[in-house]
């Protein structure tokens, strides 16, 4: 090989073409994700658009609890009860998931060592991979009779059932993210606090948790996003009846479950069909905002 020849500078060899090809493939892959998201948004918006343009009135849609889309004489499309259903279930789910996931994350990140730690991490990831219909099945066939028996209520498919199921569903992913946040706290902080005579709990409470608070908040927000978006388990465990809950033993219906249950039975293009898509736009907007906030918060700690 002649090293002195400067004609090499202009030759496009195999490596050069491979490099270009890989760049192109990766570029297409990356761009397509964005294109798909925009495409989905455009599709949902278009389907719901004529409803928003014609029949939609803000107070009637958001502030009425009358969801009667199949009424022959006077169909109404008020989603207040559905929002209340989703919010109550998600709220209870967070009450369940936050202590579990923070506790698990603190244990895995700060206390567990060696093999225990590895096994726990794998188990948490395994739990996160359980399909939601399985969780719904657990709610339907195990939690339902237990709730009826323990609390002596007529129906076990209610806010309590769905909240617990959804909480357990959201906990693994929240644990994973919270653990990452705790691990991102540099060890020198822990060492410095330990050297001052802080006990392990003092190190965690005074130094590690405050330092990781953005990441932990991000984990919680992602859990909330999961709660809003979850469909199948919520459909199966809530009881699916339109209702503004006054206690945790009331059955409710979630926004997502409404779309899943009704979309197949509506005529394409009908007001009902378009109202469901409007709910879709609403959900899309909410989960987008929640995830964006979570992402910005988690990013915030990395940049500091």
């Amino acid at each position, binding site marked *: 090989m002649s090293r002195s020849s400067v004609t090499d500078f202009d030759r496009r060899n195999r490596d050069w073409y491979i490099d270009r090809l890989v760049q192109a493939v990766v570029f297409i892959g990356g761009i397509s994700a964005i294109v798909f998201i925009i495409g989905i948004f455009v599709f949902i918006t278009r389907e719901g658009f004529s409803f928003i343009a014609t029949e939609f009135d803000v107070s009637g849609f958001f502030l009425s609890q009358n969801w009667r889309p199949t009424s022959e004489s006077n169909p109404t499309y008020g989603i207040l009860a559905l929002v209340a259903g989703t919010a109550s279930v998600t709220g209870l789910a967070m009450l369940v998931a936050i202590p579990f996931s923070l506790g698990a994350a603190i244990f895995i990140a700060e206390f567990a060592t060696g093999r225990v730690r590895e096994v726990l991490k794998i188990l948490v990831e395994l739990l996160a991979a359980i399909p939601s219909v399985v969780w719904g099945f657990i709610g339907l066939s195990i939690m339902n009779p237990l709730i009826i028996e323990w609390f002596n209520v007529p129906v076990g498919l209610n806010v309590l059932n769905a909240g617990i199921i959804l909480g357990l569903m959201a906990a693994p992913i929240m644990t994973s993210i919270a653990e990452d946040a705790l691990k991102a706290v540099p060890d020198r902080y822990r060492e410095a606090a330990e050297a*001052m*005579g802080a*006990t392990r709990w003092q190190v965690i409470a*005074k130094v590690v948790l405050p330092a990781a608070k953005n990441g932990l908040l991000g984990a919680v927000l992602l859990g909330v996003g999961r709660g809003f978006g979850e469909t199948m388990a919520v459909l199966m465990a809530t009881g699916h009846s339109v209702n503004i809950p006054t206690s945790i033993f009331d059955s409710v219906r979630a926004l997502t479950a409404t779309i899943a249950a009704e979309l197949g039975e509506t005529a394409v293009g009908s007001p009902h069909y378009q109202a469901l898509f409007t709910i879709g736009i609403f959900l899309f907007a909410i989960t987008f905002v929640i995830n964006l906030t979570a992402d910005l918060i988690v990013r915030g700690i990395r940049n500091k």
Partner: protein
Amino acid sequence: MVNAVTTGADAKVSVRNLEIAYGDATALSGVDLDIRENEIFGVIGPANAGKTSFLKALNRMDMFNPEMKVGGDIHFSGRNTRGLRNVYALRRRIGVVFPLPVGLPMNVYDNVALAPRLGGQRNRAELDVIVERCLRRAALWDEVKDRLDTLGSLLSGGQQQRLTIARALSQQPEVLMLDEFSIAVDPVTTMRIEDVLKQLREEMTIILVTNLVQQARRLADRTAFFLDGRCVEIGVTEDLFTGEVRDQRTRDYVEGRFG
């Protein structure tokens, strides 16, 4: 106490037959030395000599590292630290300054007030007094008194290292251990901290691990030379530099022929 016989009577810290290993790798072995009250005790030696491991053993930092095994005896004020039930109480009496400054992710005030708060101090007025006193003694007060509420990690490197010293002082330690404190600090700040240490000698015992031989000469009353996991020499610092040494390697090291 049986050990009282073998312990130097006026020693603040007394080390007997200290062995430190990480897994199978020995980091330090056969160290016997006494550190007297109110002296600055220098520890010099090249990298991997076991200097940092020595400090870690003194305040029982081995507890959280299952790999680290410590053998032999270390007495603190005559009390063997081996069988302590409450290592936290021991650590509260030993201040530590690490090589790289660690500004905890909280404001300047809270950094210094952390140790007293851990000890149960809640009174704001008393905390104010402690914080000001410690920052003054660490020669940092004048620079930060108007911004006690800024994040500690936003201070410059030299300021953070003095903040670390102020934090170490806030628990009123009997022993202050510094591990190569000037590694990330500019020469001017290094001199200021050295002046601080000279004053602190009146009140506490200082163990100064340093890779700067001249720093040990400027500060230490007595100096130990560690090499390859052994304590090769202990003596009055000036003797080490005037050639009155037992081991030729000590002379070679302080004169810069290796390391």
